[in-house]
């Protein structure tokens, strides 16, 4: 855990990037069980194909959990006031997701606004998010 302070951060500062391992079918099976999201479109290729998809694909909330790791690797979780994302594209099976972010605004009350994203190994953005953290 770092000791990020309001005084020390500047607009434009990057967050340390967090790269995850390749998303395998096992990753999705374990996430389905652990997250309680049993939607078969993420774990059952027959269901996915019947729904018109070429294959299963990652739960959006798996990508958001990865974005959460980006935030809590930078500041303690208790500093996070708001956290949101758009799921802009499907994260395909076998994707290698890297989460990045930067400071976009310093506000009154020691609040710092961030833009964050999760992209795959081709640089295609999958999640485009925002967060507000309160720093000491």
């Amino acid at each position, binding site marked *: *855990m770092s000791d990020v302070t309001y005084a020390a951060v500047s607009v434009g500062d990057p967050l340390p990037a967090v790269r995850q391992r390749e998303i395998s079918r096992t990753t999705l099976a*374990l996430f389905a069980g*652990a*997250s*309680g999201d049993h939607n078969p479109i993420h774990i059952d290729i027959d269901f996915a194909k019947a729904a018109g998809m070429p294959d299963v694909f990652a739960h959006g*909330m798996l990508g958001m959990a990865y974005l959460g790791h980006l935030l809590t*690797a930078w500041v303690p*979780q208790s500093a996070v006031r708001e*956290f949101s994302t*758009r799921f802009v594209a499907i994260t395909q099976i076998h994707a290698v997701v890297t989460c990045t972010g930067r400071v976009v605004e310093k506000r009154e009350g020691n609040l710092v606004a961030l833009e964050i994203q999760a992209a795959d190994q081709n640089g295609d953005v999958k999640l485009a998010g925002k967060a507000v953290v309160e720093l000491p």
Partner: protein
Amino acid sequence: MIDRAFIGQSFEPLTVTVEAGRLRAFARATAQRDPIYWDVAAAQAAGYPSIPAPLTFVFTLDLERADPFYFINEMKIELAHVLHGEQAFTYGAPICAGDEVTLISSVKDIYDKKGGAMEFVILETSAQNQRGEDLGSMTRTIVVRNPQ
């Protein structure tokens, strides 16, 4: 088309216990690297009474229902046509293993684009613990792709 009469409707509240084992499974499944999310001693050293729930965990708590897709099914939406469009959280008191969390969800809006080809449902969920403390809220937007 989804019945717009669902706008404003609240669903049955859910009270669920935050289980340490589930938190550990979630940490493993998401390749968590910080031990406070699976080790009680590490969590306590960081100032938590027990393992904290990670930032997105309220979403998982709300799936602890007999029917995890309750609002989708009540609105007679075809699950195979559903995509998760957006998700937002605000935060209050921390949630830790052993807490009893009560979630109340309601439909904030339903609207469509592209002449009804895509419909959007916005569901807001508030969370409180057993001491009545505000744990924050979450807002999810689902996208329904209606076959033409």
